């Protein structure tokens, strides 16, 4: 039992480090990408996996806190697409232009705040 907890703790630590690396890649993506839509891809979604992995890893090092951490993970999974979708929609409706070279469908793109 003692060794099992120790192994679980180390495995959790490794998972947490991998998750933190994903968080860093997400932040790096925000820094490198050319416009707000590409930044949303890297930023709020590559960080989702990083977030889940880091939280689950932390939870494994302290198994008795796992239920509450699972609640945080669930909440992140449920709300993250909503908030990044809200940001993307607000950006396109307020007329933020995508980077030059973006191909676009004429019915969707750049309705620029005109849609009801």
């Amino acid at each position, binding site marked *: 039992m003692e060794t099992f907890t120790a192994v679980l703790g180390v495995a959790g630590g490794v998972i947490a480090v991998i998750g933190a690396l994903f968080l860093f890649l997400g932040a790096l993506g925000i820094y490198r990408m050319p416009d*707000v839509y590409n930044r949303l891809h890297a930023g709020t979604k590559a960080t989702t996996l990083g*977030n889940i992995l880091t939280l689950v890893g932390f939870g494994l090092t302290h198994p008795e806190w796992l239920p509450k951490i699972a609640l945080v993970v669930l909440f992140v999974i449920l709300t993250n697409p909503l908030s990044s979708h809200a940001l993307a929609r607000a950006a396109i409706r307020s007329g933020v232009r995508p980077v030059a070279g973006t191909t676009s469908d004429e019915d969707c793109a750049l309705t620029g705040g005109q849609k009801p």
Partner: protein
Amino acid sequence: MAETLVLVALGIALLAGMLATVQLVRGPDAATRAVALDAITLITLPMMVGLALVVGRSIYIDVALVYAILSFLGVVAFARYLDRGI
């Protein structure tokens, strides 16, 4: 061993948060800053849970939970503001 790994993960997350903060300051428009802010919240969330592990107080996880809820509302409110003004 596990504690060291937790500290390493926290350090990497801190670097990620700093990089996102640079973008928050640098970003050319308001939407980019909002994206950076959203990313910062997502990075801070596991850091709070990690802090709870390091100091050994489970109450900080509740703080992280409330922070997740409030930051989600904040980002949605900001998106609404960008969309049509308040």
